[in-house]
């Protein structure tokens, strides 16, 4: 685990520095409005999102499992990463602005409650996707072509399941900007950060497709078994997320 520990330490250090850079610069905008600083903040928010999503979470497991169990191309993985990023950004924006403007005070406590509800909804959706994948694999085991076409329908469901839980990291940036009265910059930072996260999530999908291609060739005849295992893993992920 030596390597993993070093990896985690580096990720944390980078995020700690990026987080500090963003907050100091956003605050400085309150004293002097400067387009260059705003653009730098958005660039750094993008990198922050990219690094932030490398750490555990953000639906990478779900995306990787999905692409392990479904034959796909890299383009689809890229598209999926970005669908998740868009949903992630919007859910963070809606949650933050919604809670902030409706409830104003007691934000922190309510945020925890809402976050838990969103997590449960996401878990139920992931369980649904798992069941759907198992059903697809089972019913499509003799109709490969048909199955391949049908499976693309579940992509949106996967993206929704992974993206609906708003990222507390994005919410923090948005709320920080809102508190300082930088509403537009808050919304743009959330989008920039989500684009960064989308890139990382896409890479997780692309990697699992690349690894899947190497092994799947040998097992092409029995591919539906792999697909079912993938579905079962997605289902277990949903159950674990629901329970904790």
């Amino acid at each position, binding site marked *: 685990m030596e390597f993993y520990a070093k990896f985690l330490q580096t990720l944390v250090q980078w995020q*700690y520095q990026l987080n500090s850079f963003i907050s100091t610069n956003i605050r400085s905008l309150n004293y002097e409005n400067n387009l260059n600083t705003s653009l730098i903040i958005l660039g750094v928010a993008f990198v922050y999102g990219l690094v932030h999503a490398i750490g555990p979470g953000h639906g990478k*497991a779900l995306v990787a499992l999905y692409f392990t169990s479904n034959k796909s191309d890299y383009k689809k993985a890229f598209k999926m990463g970005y669908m998740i990023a868009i949903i992630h950004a919007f859910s963070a924006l809606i949650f933050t602005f919604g809670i902030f403007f409706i409830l104003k005070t007691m934000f922190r406590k309510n945020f925890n409650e809402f976050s838990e509800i969103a997590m449960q909804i996401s878990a139920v959706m992931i369980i649904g996707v798992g069941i759907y994948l198992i059903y697809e694999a089972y019913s499509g085991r003799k109709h490969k072509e048909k199955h391949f076409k049908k499976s693309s329908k579940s992509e949106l469901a996967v993206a929704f399941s992974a993206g609906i839980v708003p990222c507390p990291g994005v919410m923090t940036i948005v709320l*920080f900007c809102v508190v300082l009265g930088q509403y537009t910059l808050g919304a743009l930072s959330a989008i920039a950060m989500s684009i960064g996260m989308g890139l990382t999530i896409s890479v997780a999908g692309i*990697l699992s497709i690349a690894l899947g291609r190497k092994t799947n060739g040998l097992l092409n005849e029995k591919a539906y078994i792999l697909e079912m295992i993938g579905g079962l*893993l997605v289902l277990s992920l949903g159950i674990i997320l629901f329970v904790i």
Partner: protein
Amino acid sequence: MKYIFTFLIFFSSVFAHPHTFIEVYPTVEVQKSKFSSIHFKWVLDEMTSTILIMELDSNANGKIDKKENDYIEKEYFSMFKPYNYYTYVKVDKKVIKFKPKNFKATIENHKLCYSFDINGEFDIKNTIFEFGDSDFYVAMVLKDEFVTIKGASVKVSGIDNDFYYGYKLEFE
């Protein structure tokens, strides 16, 4: 290979990653190889601080008053109890339970700070302080220059806790 990869990300997905950063400033005094005072100061990152200050500095005077301090201690700081205040005092490898004393919240350079003391009637020789959040929602940050020590010397190093990263203080 595919399954190792899949299982790795499957497991790691269950764990969160840091969203809040807390710098830890320990101030420790040692007399005759025993701790005579142990004080910790946490400095929360600016983003988290700003959001919390908005709510916790209820009269918005830029300071934490007595009433606000009591509220923070009761409603916020006590929430860290189940997490052992992200601080593990280990004597002979056993975790010692402690109750924080003299809690004080302050605002310094737009950052929210929590200060508290703990009692330490033990020998420094076999004592280690570890800092970290096993849920990895919070990242505790400790650097050499954050430590103030009298009467002994200290070593700061990182610890690998499998799925989260922490720091430890060893005394000599």
